[in-house]
């Protein structure tokens, strides 16, 4: 190839503009530049995550850079005009190389260069020279040695001088053609399967990209593609028992709808889990309703086991909730004692408005999981347990702000005690912060909620506080009838503050009040301690009343250790409620799990073109690397007396060490055989002489 380019450059003066352009396009420098350019451009697409919602980019980069990056199509680099231009140039460059070099390669494969003259052989790096007694014998030996070493050759010569042009591994040069042709073929195949036509239509406006989250029926016809579209790749989620005849193709910042010529019905979806909670396998029972089929086609597809139907390939790609129906109970966490739990039904992916504790929230049910497996680290390694169903939802304020929650249906064991867990976070990127509500002896929420309800009732609190104050003052031997109601009032106020801001807020309030009242520092400590005691005893009394009522008793029952611990846990939860940020606790009381299967559907007519190109590439690479291309020449010069001079010469730039070995082997063989051949020739000549 390099020799050819030299020849070309020598005759540049006489070249036309077209030839110069051709030379530029086929030049190695351009090829290398393009290889590196594609590599660098590809890197960009791996650094900026591709195909994300535009809002995410806006948040990440800010409005200015978002705009700049969008102009540069950095959110879909591999479909970007500039990227395709580089790729196109790579294909053109490769094609021009092929166009220019295929004839050269063909010559190298087919021509033996037997016209070479002695002088040009003498300058080659590897040489061997011998004298032979008989030129004919020498030629026979040369021929046999060349073919024995795998060379094909062509003979040319006259009476005096014979040149054997020999070569082996000529398919090495075919490797060049195959590999470069392969690149062009693969790129063309990729182009057939790419979404270039869609990009074009979206750019010219004949296809509208749907960016809203709406139902299929609401998407306008300008965003639909007919079922004649030859190539696409999209996905669709179908709940169990439902059917779909479309698939969504991601395009720019939204999707377009691809009509299918058949309808896919999902009869059942199954998923199995390992004990670690990871999915072991998932599969869908599909029924294809195609007017071209006499009866519906039934097949189960699984990951790695797609269904191919009339050029459409249907893959199992994911799974998720398909709109599970949930029975829910919203326990009020705020408001007066009149607020009672509300029972209602919900469906995943639906939202509904709730009025609770005088506040309005939109409940958006986002996901429901039946299994949640958590690893437990125990002494003998790890053990896994399923902690049961969970629901993920958002509570949106009328102002639009929302917090996300994750609630577990069943209480979860932690250190021998059971808690209802509810996680909250304000952004997807954050970890959930969990509220632990202790479960009562029946593994239910009732005791905690009764306790909380009692605390929310000012009258109950006031009464309990009064009794507590009286007892306390008595024990301190303070006999001021005015004092007890005042203390009780303060205690009630503290309970209210506890519900509004947690223990921290109560402490802060007490400290501030003591400072405002200018209580001298020495007494502050005592007063603060007194406040704490009043609050604690009031809370304890209310708790005891709740437990007593729960037991159906009238006179206060004594609390055992378990009840005491429940009380501590309950107070911790209550103190955390203000941070929990919701006016309600959502309990799942029942569910009907409906799953959905995520299908990927493609039509890729270019696939076989790409596979053909890949096969070419593999064959070509193998030929280029492992079929060494070698040329040697043998020159047999006949002397007047019938003896001959034999010259063997060759060279290889690409694989000098390998060639050296190969050449040495050939040289050794010729050395041995030519010597032996000469002997034989001499001997036979002698015998003949003896006969006469």
């Amino acid at each position, binding site marked *: *190839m*390099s020799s050819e380019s030299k020849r070309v450059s020598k005759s540049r003066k006489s070249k036309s503009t077209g030839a110069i352009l051709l030379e530029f396009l086929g030049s*190695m420098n351009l*090829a*290398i530049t393009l*290889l*590196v350019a*594609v*590599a660098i451009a*590809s*890197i960009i*697409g*791996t650094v900026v*995550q*591709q195909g994300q919602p535009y809002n995410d980019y806006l948040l990440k980069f800010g409005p200015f850079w978002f705009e700049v990056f969008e102009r540069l199509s950095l959110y879909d*680099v*591999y479909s970007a005009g500039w990227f395709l231009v580089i790729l196109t140039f790579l294909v053109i460059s490769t094609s021009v190389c092929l166009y220019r070099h295929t004839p050269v390669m063909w010559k190298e494969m087919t021509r033996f260069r037997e016209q070479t003259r002695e002088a040009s052989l003498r300058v080659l790096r590897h040489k061997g020279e011998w004298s032979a007694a*008989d030129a*004919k*014998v020498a030629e*026979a030996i040369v021929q*046999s*040695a060349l073919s024995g070493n795998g060379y094909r050759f062509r003979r040319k010569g006259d009476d005096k001088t014979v040149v054997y042009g020999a070569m082996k591994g000529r398919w090495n040069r075919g490797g060049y053609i195959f590999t470069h042709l392969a690149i062009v073929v693969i790129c063309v195949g*990729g182009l057939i*399967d790419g979404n270039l036509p869609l990009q074009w239509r979206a750019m010219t406006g004949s296809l509208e990209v749907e960016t809203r989250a709406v139902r299929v029926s609401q998407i306008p016809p300008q965003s639909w593609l007919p079922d004649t579209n030859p190539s696409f*790749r999209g996905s669709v989620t179908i709940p169990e028992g439902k059917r779909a005849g479309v698939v969504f193709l991601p395009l720019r910042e939204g999707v377009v709808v691809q009509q299918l010529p058949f309808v896919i019905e999902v009869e059942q979806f199954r998923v199995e889990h*390992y004990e*670690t909670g*990871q*999915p*072991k*396998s998932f599969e869908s029972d599909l029924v294809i309703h195609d007017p071209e089929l006499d009866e519906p086609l039934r097949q189960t597809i699984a*990951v*790695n086991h*797609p269904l191919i139907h009339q050029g459409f390939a249907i*893959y199992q*790609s994911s799974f998720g909730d398909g709109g599970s129906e949930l029975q829910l109970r919203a326990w009020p966490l705020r408001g007066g004692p009149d607020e009672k739990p509300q029972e209602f039904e919900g469906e995943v992916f639906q939202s509904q408005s709730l009025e609770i504790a005088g506040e309005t929230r939109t409940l958006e049910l986002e996901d429901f999981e039946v299994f949640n497996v958590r690893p437990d680290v125990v002494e003998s390694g*790890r053990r896994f347990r399923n902690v049961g169903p969970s629901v993920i939802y958002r509570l949106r304020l009328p102002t639009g702000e929302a917090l996300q929650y994750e609630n577990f249906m069943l209480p979860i064991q932690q250190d021998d005690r059971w808690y209802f867990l509810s996680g909250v976070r304000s952004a997807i990127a954050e970890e959930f912060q969990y509220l632990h509500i202790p479960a009562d002896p029946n593994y239910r929420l009732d005791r905690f909620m009764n306790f909380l309800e009692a605390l929310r009732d000012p009258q109950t609190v006031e009464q309990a506080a009064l009794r507590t104050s009286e007892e306390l003052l008595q024990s301190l031997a303070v006999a001021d009838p005015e004092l007890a109601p005042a203390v009780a009032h303060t205690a009630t106020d503290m309970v209210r503050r506890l519900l509004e801001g947690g223990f921290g807020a109560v402490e802060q309030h007490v400290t501030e009040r003591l400072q405002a009242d200018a209580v001298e520092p020495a007494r502050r400590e005592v007063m603060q301690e007194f406040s704490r005691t009043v609050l604690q005893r009031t809370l304890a009394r209310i708790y005891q009343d709740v437990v007593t009522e729960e037991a159906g008793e009238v006179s206060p029952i004594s609390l055992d250790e378990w009840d005491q611990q429940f009380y501590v846990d309950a107070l911790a939860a209550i103190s955390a409620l203000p941070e929990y940020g919701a006016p309600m606790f959502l309990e799942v009381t029942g569910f009907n799990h409906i799953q959905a299967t995520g299908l*990927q*559907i*493609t039509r*890729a007519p270019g*696939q076989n073109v*790409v*596979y053909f190109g*890949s096969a070419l*590439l*593999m064959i070509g*690479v*193998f030929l280029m*690397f*492992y079929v060494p291309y070698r040329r040697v020449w043998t020159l047999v010069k006949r002397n007047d007396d019938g003896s001959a001079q034999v010259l063997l010469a060759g060279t290889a*730039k690409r694989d*000098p060490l390998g060639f050296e070995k190969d050449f040495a082997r050939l040289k050794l063989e010729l050395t041995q*055989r030519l010597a032996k051949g000469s002997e*034989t*020739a001499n001997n*036979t*000549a002698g015998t*003949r002489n003896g006969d006469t």
Partner: protein
Amino acid sequence: MATPNDVLNADYERQGFLSSLKPFDWVWMVACVVGYLGVLSVYGPAMDRYEHAILVGTVISLMWLGWYWKPIRVYGLAVAASTTLALFIYPDMAAGEERFLLKYLLSSQSATMWMCALFIGATVAYFAALLSRSAFVGKTAAGMTWCAAAFGLIGLLVRWHESYLLWPGHGYIPVANLYEVFIQFAVVTALLYLYYEERYRTRALGGFVMLVISSAVIFLLWYHFDRQAHEIEPLIPALQSWWMKLHVPTNFVAYGAFAVAAMVAVAYLFKLNNPEGNILGRLPSFEQMDDVMYKTIALGFAFFTLATILGALWAAEAWGGYWSWDPKETWALIVWLNYAAWLHLRFTKGWRGAPMAWWAIIGLFVTLFAFLGVNLFLSGLHSYGAL
């Protein structure tokens, strides 16, 4: 009269293929067939037709490899014998803790630890041999490398068995996560190096190549002790395919070859700095090192091309498209383009020497990013090997 034909009849003795085979060649062929039948009798019923095809292909490749590179036969027989022994005495996971041979030598954990220790030892020994010019130390180093590679492969094969003990019916070939492929990387790189050591009759490059293997070993140890990565996790559905048996090992032959090329390039550059140096002067000639670099990059490129095509075929079946511009795929393309450019410059421009050596080293970093960095920093479909 003597015609040229007489001379041809008294032909030069050129050996035929069959007569060139020595007894040990036949032993190897027979061993391969026996091994094949053994695997077939034990695992045959559980294999699908693709796995049968892969097994036959593997056996044929092994036969060829044993013929092409003789020392691999001893290695192969030793690994096969040890693994067979381990499988016989390993009916359940508890045996791994109870049986002495398993606990201290042949369970995947122990074998891997032996591999780690031996590779580190071999690195030291190779450098000691280079410094002391001692042929004995050099032989010891090579012996340690062979043993390390054997333990690594035994560890992987036994781990394959262990995965079935842990997850009955759902075991898998241990090339599914970073921990497992790092072992594979170390083994493949070592074997490739040993091949070139034998072909070029020099042990001077050993220390350099062992450096990259030792780095992998250190990562492996950290991964084991800090992240408990040695635990055998169950296999996610996307990886449950016979394609994995082809795609991953093919890829790691390429990575191993690229690693050898880069480390030879390091030696090349060291020698370039001080060609007549007392120690560096003992490295092979520039021409030889250049040749090894080219050979390994060519080998790596061929295998990388094959691995990427296999990956595309698998992706078409698992993800619904042969090419998705997933970060791993894209980085595979970048690695491929990079070495394609390297080969073009060498082939057509005849570039040699320092720039190509530097490029080979940079190539290893690009490769490293493709196989480790993508998992660490980028997300995508190939997110199996996250740390």
